[in-house]
């Protein structure tokens, strides 16, 4: 690897040292200087988690070769405030609750700082535009906007610094807007996520992934990779000492492909090497011979007789079917004044947490295999790893590192087994950090759904019967599919008491990217269909959308779709509050937007026209340098 001498100023300190020529500024900051406050979220300049200032200009450090930064003045999140201190902007983020998982936050603070340095009087529209290159997946941005406006007011002297302080407590800490106790570490970039941790003698792991959606593995030859200088070990499914299989409900997924691959991106082998580059080069030396198999990519096709079978245990490709039956559906439809039918579909959705998967494993002095990762379920991961590694459960230890966004996507186990195996094989700490592309191709998604809906109602809007059928693509492995189907079924027909219903939810194996746990666990797919049907019915029956929901809503004592009697239910209060808060104009939902009088209130934003928001000419055109 060719080397390079760089001299630059970082956070007001002169740095002069040798580095590798291929490095980006981000790599230099993180790997050479251990300034890990700048995060890698995408490596392609799209998410902004790596934002720094170079000669006063906001730059995505993943896009800048370190050679280009030589001779420049660089400012990172670590340099904004003195150690243990926070800038006004960071304090405002703390006050408003603008930091949740915190992974995007160093970059977001840099962008906010840039915005107010460029224009200390920036209005909300300009602030939004200037934050437009930074993605946050947790907060919905709203508290971030509030923080930047608060900081602007304090910096301008319009508000005193007291507004940034903790609110005084009343009679109880329950109901108190306590500022987040862990936010300062996130706001200053001090918090170490799994990819930020360095251990002595640590190896880097890289994973060889399947290029095929469905193929038999004829052979895997790792000898050439293992012989490479700098390679400490190569692992395949052959290295699994225990029972190879994980999953939340059915243990159908091997740690690495065993005998065949079932989706593009499935792990096939992994290399642990002295450094990342060597590990990547070694992957190319692993020779895998595949025999491609026909694949099935549509869940309804996968359910047909004669379809390609993914798993021997499930000849019909059904992961799970959940039925609900309540009352007499035929009698309900017979009594109905109106019967409505519609089909709905929802897409596969990526969690897009800003922190790609990462982890470290090592074997400690007591012979305990320790896995550190941003896992949402260390309890279950430990149980599964104990079986996979064939070790007593107290010889496996899972530690949850700070989670840079999860949303269910870090609940299903994925790579922890590979890390543990490599640590056991090499007896050295091993670290694995996914790229964004790897995270997207290898991690589970929200279940896509197809719903067939039939609803029968009386003229007054009362629902008499529902037939609800949902088919969902579970992808190549079971993961959380069974639970997702169960929750979708239980919640399917919405917060309404329905006397007669017939609900079926079914998840199906295909050779697509697996679907798994994702915030709402099937609940939103099902209720999207139901809530659309409620409006379709309201229009057909000339009833206001709130009213038709009130006619059917669950109350204390109602029997749910699973025939559970509710001990409390608050939907009446919720609907009343929503109607009042939104100043809702009553009426049946016939395309009445043009005549509504409740639109465009002070509680809405202005529509956005891209690029039109900078108030006066070129941003920062006054040429003044501002630092705070």
């Amino acid at each position: 690897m060719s080397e390079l001498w760089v001299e630059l100023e970082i956070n007001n300190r002169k740095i002069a040292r040798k580095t590798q020529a291929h490095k980006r500024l981000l790599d230099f900051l993180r790997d050479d200087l251990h300034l890990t406050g700048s995060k890698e979220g995408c490596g392609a300049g799209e998410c902004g988690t790596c934002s720094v200032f170079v000669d006063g200009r906001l730059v995505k450090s993943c896009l800048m070769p370190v050679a280009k930064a030589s001779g420049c003045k660089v400012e990172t999140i670590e340099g904004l405030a003195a150690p243990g201190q926070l800038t006004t902007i960071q304090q405002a983020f703390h006050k408003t609750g603008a930091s949740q998982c915190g992974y995007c936050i160093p970059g977001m603070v840099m962008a906010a700082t840039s915005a107010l340095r460029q224009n200390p009087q920036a209005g909300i529209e300009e602030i939004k535009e200037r934050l437009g290159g930074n993605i946050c997946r947790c907060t919905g941005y709203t508290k971030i906007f509030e923080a930047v406006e608060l900081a602007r007011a304090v910096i301008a002297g319009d508000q005193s610094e007291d507004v940034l302080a903790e609110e005084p407590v009343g009679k109880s800490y329950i109901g108190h807007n306590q500022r987040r106790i862990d936010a300062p570490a996130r706001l200053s970039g001090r918090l170490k996520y799994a990819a930020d941790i360095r251990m002595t003698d640590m190896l880097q792991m890289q994973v060889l992934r399947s290029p095929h959606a469905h193929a038999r593995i004829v052979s895997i030859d790792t000898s050439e990779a293992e012989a490479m200088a700098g390679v400490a070990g190569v692992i395949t499914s052959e290295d699994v000492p225990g029972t190879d299989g994980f999953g939340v409900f059915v243990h159908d997924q091997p740690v690495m492909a065993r005998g065949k691959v079932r989706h593009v991106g499935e792990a096939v082998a992994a290399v642990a090497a002295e450094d990342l580059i060597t590990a990547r080069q070694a992957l190319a030396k692993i020779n895998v011979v595949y025999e491609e198999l026909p694949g099935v990519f549509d869940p309804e096709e996968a359910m047909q007789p004669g379809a390609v079978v993914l798993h021997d245990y499930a000849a019909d490709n059904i992961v799970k079917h959940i039925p609900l039956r309540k009352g007499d559906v035929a009698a309900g439809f017979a009594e109905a004044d109106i019967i409505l039918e519609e089909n709905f579909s929802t897409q596969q959705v990526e969690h897009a947490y800003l922190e790609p998967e990462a982890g470290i494993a090592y074997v400690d002095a007591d012979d305990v295999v320790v896995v550190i990762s941003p896992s949402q379920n260390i309890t279950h991961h430990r149980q599964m790893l104990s079986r996979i590694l064939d070790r007593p459960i107290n010889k496996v230890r899972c530690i949850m590192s700070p989670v840079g966004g999860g949303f269910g996507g870090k609940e299903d186990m994925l790579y922890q087994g590979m890390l543990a195996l490599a640590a056991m094989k090499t007896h050295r700490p091993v670290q694995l950090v996914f790229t964004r592309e790897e995270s997207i191709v290898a991690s589970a998604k929200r279940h896509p759904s197809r719903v067939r809906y039939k609803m029968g109602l009386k003229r007054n809007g009362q629902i008499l019967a529902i037939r609800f059928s949902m088919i969902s693509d579970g992808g190549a492995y079971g993961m959380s599919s069974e639970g997702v189907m169960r929750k979708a079924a239980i919640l399917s027909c919405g917060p309404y008491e329905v006397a007669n219903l017939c609900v079926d939810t079914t998840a199906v194996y295909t050779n697509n990217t697996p679907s798994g746990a994702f915030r709402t666990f099937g609940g939103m797919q099902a209720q999207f269909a139901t809530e659309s049907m409620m409006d379709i019915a309201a229009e057909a029956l000339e009833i206001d959308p709130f009213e038709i929901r009130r006619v059917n809503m669950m109350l204390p004592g109602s029997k749910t779709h699973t025939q559970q009697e509710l001990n409390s239910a608050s939907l009446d209060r919720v609907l009343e509050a929503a109607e009042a808060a939104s100043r809702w104009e009553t009426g049946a939902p016939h395309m009445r937007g043009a005549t509504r009088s409740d639109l465009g209130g002070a509680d809405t934003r202005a529509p956005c026209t891209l690029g039109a928001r900078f108030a006066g000419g070129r941003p920062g055109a006054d040429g003044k340098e501002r630092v705070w």
Partner: protein
Amino acid sequence: MERKLRGRGVAASWYGIARTATIDRAGAWAELDDGGTAKIVTGVTEIGEGILTLLAQVAADALGIKPSDVTIGDNDTARSPEAAHAGATRQTYMIGNAVTLACREAKMALFEQIATHWSVDIDCLLAFDGELQARGHNLRMTMEEAVATCKAHGVVPVGSASFTAHGTGLDPVDGSGSPWQAYVFGAQVAEVEVDTYTGEVQVLGIWAVHDVGRAINPRGVEGQIEGGVVQGLGQALMEEYQTVDGHPVTPGFAKYILPTALDIPQINCTIIEDPDPLSPLGAKGIGEPALVPTAPAIMNAIYDAIGVRMTSLPATPEKILQALQDKTPGRGRDVRTARDEGAQSQELAQRRGAL
């Protein structure tokens, strides 16, 4: 037809709290420590939602100290009691209640010693914000002094607890059962503007009303609602992971489109507090339920604006234009003509590239 049309829609929702159709459980340990501080240990915590802060508030309230004096040790299967997992909208409910119960036990251990020390009835002791008093007596001490007094009696004030939520499995034939003991309800209204030339939908306002049980940290609840709404908006309008014969064609954020600062509606939150009758805290949860009604509220608003029913998510500009064309035969030609006429507009010219 006007180019830009607005409309509004509403959707309601419900959700169950904690793990589904099973007995859920969580454990916690508590210790009142030197200086009137506290150590809380539990198995699983922060994934960004603010649970560490919430647990500090809950512990402070139960112990009579300040949240800043609470140290939370967590996240380690070899060092902390099981608290299962960080998901299923269960942390406030399961772990919050486990911590509450553990803290109550630790505080009672302390109160027993202080009642003896002061020769007062234990029921008259009250601790809040770092100070302990005996109501009806002129007796006060700091919690720092109280812990020292307790330890001088030979007692380390510790507590532990397990909290259970009694869900049952579903019948395999008719699905009957009681999957959760606590439910929350919500409703959201969306206001949208649809550009009938480009098919682009902008969400201008969301009114989000959610029952969360007792709101331990209202600002944190708002943060969860706002984040949920924006994930719902992304799913409603732009996000789509696509594969062709199993091969991903949206492998990065250039192809997989996420909501940014410019897509965000004004989000108006209203918190409804209907306390849970079955748990000591009375809190329920908000993490997942917040995004359930967003997409259908937006689709209902699009219908209100332009009279087309979007049944397939996401409602991309392409699908909106197609639906408008299907609704009005011959309209496709009109739209194209209109676009050509509008080409002198710089903004429209920019957008044509995107189309």
